[in-house]
Structure formats: C-alpha cells, structure tokens
C-alpha cells in the first residue's frame, strides 16, 4: 500500500515526482472546494428559508413546476458521469494510456452535457409556465441554487475540453496528472452538491 499524501485518489509512489508535486496543488484545491461548499451551503439555507407559502407570493409552487422523471434522469446522468470520471482517474493511476483516459473523460463530458440539456429544458418549461426568477422570492432562491450548480457543470465541461486538448497536444505529463486528479475531485464534489439539491429542492418540494 503506497502512502497517501492528500485526500482524494493518490497517484501512488510509482508515479514518482508527480505524486509528490500533486500534494500542494490538491491541498490548495480542497481549500477552494470547501469555500465553494460554504457558498452552496448558504444558498441552501436561503432556499430553505424561502420555501414557505409566504415566499411563494401566490406564484406557482413545487407541485406545478417540478418533474420527478426529469430530476431522476438528471441524477442518473450525473451519477454515471461520476463513475466514468473515477474510471478516468484509475486509467491515469494504472497507466492505461492517454487514449483510455481521454475516452473516459469524453464519456464523462457527454453525460454531463446530457444532465445540462435536461436541466435547461426544465428551466425553459418552468419559465413557459410563468415561473421566472422574478416571480417570487422562492423562485429567485431556487434559480440561484440550482443555476449555480448548473454553471459549475458548464465550467466542468469546458475544463474537460481543455484537458482533452492538453492530453492530445502534450501527452500525459506530470502537470496534467495533477490537473486530472483535481478535476476528478471537482466533478465528484458536484455530484455531492446535487444529492443535496435533489433531496432538499425537488423531493422535499414534491413530498
């Protein structure tokens, strides 16, 4: 068993310098993730405090707006993408070659794009029903929370494209190994936040 230098998947001693160098970057990224967690946490608190009949201001409520099937499919897309992202990390750690890493990353991106497409379709449906962010305090906090998560996914998709270009141009260098580790942390973290969103926003809203 190789020694772990940081939380998250470790490259292991066989990767030599890359394993040592990734310690500081990964720790720094955990600092970012934890501050991001607090941003999401405060938006969750705002949402919880705003999901009262008063804050809905006579506008459309959860029962009229939420679609359980769509939320379920988004959850499935995101969970599957978390697994394929893990497979990309393992392909990196056990040197299965750049093709294999790129393939898993591309599948992760496709699943992420599927999630985003469904989320945007749901937002469009809600807006068509008159549920714009301006309609009520509850809807403002809903779009802020779910929208911020969607923006994170969008940023993650851009990040995957950049990683794929870097792997294609430069191969799997030490620097790219560290970036892949960090990306995996980011993507798994977004799945964690989504558990909170489907539980607190969608399931609690429909219960």
């Amino acid at each position, binding site marked *: *068993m*190789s020694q*772990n*230098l*940081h*939380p*998250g*998947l*470790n490259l*292991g001693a066989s990767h030599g310098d890359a394993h040592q160098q990734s310690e500081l970057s990964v*720790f720094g990224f*955990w*600092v970012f993730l*934890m*501050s991001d*967690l*607090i941003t999401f*946490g*405060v938006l*969750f*608190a*705002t949402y*919880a*405090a705003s999901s*009262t009949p*008063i804050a809905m201001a006579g506008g459309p409520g959860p029962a009229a707006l939420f679609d*359980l099937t769509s939320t*379920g499919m988004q*959850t499935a897309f995101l*969970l*599957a993408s*978390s*697994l394929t992202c*893990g*497979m990309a990390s*393992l392909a990196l*750690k*056990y040197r299965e070659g750049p093709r294999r890493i790129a393939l898993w990353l591309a599948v992760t991106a496709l699943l992420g794009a599927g999630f985003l497409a469904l989320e945007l379709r749901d937002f469009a449906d809600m807006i068509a029903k008159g549920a714009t962010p301006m309609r009520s305090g509850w809807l403002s906090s809903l779009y802020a929370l779910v929208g911020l998560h969607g923006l994170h996914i969008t940023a993650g998709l851009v990040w995957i494209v950049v990683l794929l270009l870097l792997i294609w141009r430069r191969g799997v260098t030490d620097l790219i190994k560290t970036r892949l580790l960090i990306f995996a*942390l980011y993507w*798994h*973290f977004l*799945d*964690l936040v989504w*558990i*909170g969103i*489907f*539980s*607190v926003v969608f*399931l*609690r809203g*429909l*219960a």
Partner: protein
Amino acid sequence: MSEERRERRSYLIGTLLSILLTAIAFATIPLDLPRGGTMLLIGISAVLQVIVQLRFFLHIDLSRQKREDLQLILFSLLLLGIMAGGTIWILTNLSQRMM
C-alpha cells in the same frame, strides 16, 4: 486482491450504493407516505449517500488523512453549520412570529 482491483471495485460499490439510496429517496414520492416519514427517509438517504460518495469517490478515510486536510474539512463544516443552521433557525423563528 491487487490495489488496482480493490480501487476499481470501490468505485463500483460506491455507484451501486448511491443508486440504491437514490432509488429509496425517489420512491418515497409515489408511495405517498405521511409527510414526516417521507422527509425522514429522504434526509437519511441523502446523508448516507453523501457519506458513501465521500468514502468511495473522494476517498475520504479519516484514519489515513493528513491532519491539516482533516482540520480544513472539519473547520469548513463548522462554519457551514453556524451559517446555514443559524440562518434557517433565525428565519423560521421570525416567520413563525410573523404569522
């Protein structure tokens, strides 16, 4: 079992447990249980799924952490608890008083 097989299996176990916990949470809606029970089931399965994903996807294993990483995570959770818990507490209290 080699480390590679063990780690590959860890991702698969994490995914299967997450699917199971998600299915339980989603099943509460069509089952139409009493509201209190539904909330409890959704809450418990959400917390369990967060723990499962931390353990199997993010590899947070308390016994092997370096101290400063663990302190970072725990301190962030403390801040979050104060801010989110405090907000919900104060605002629901205010909301009840204004009824």
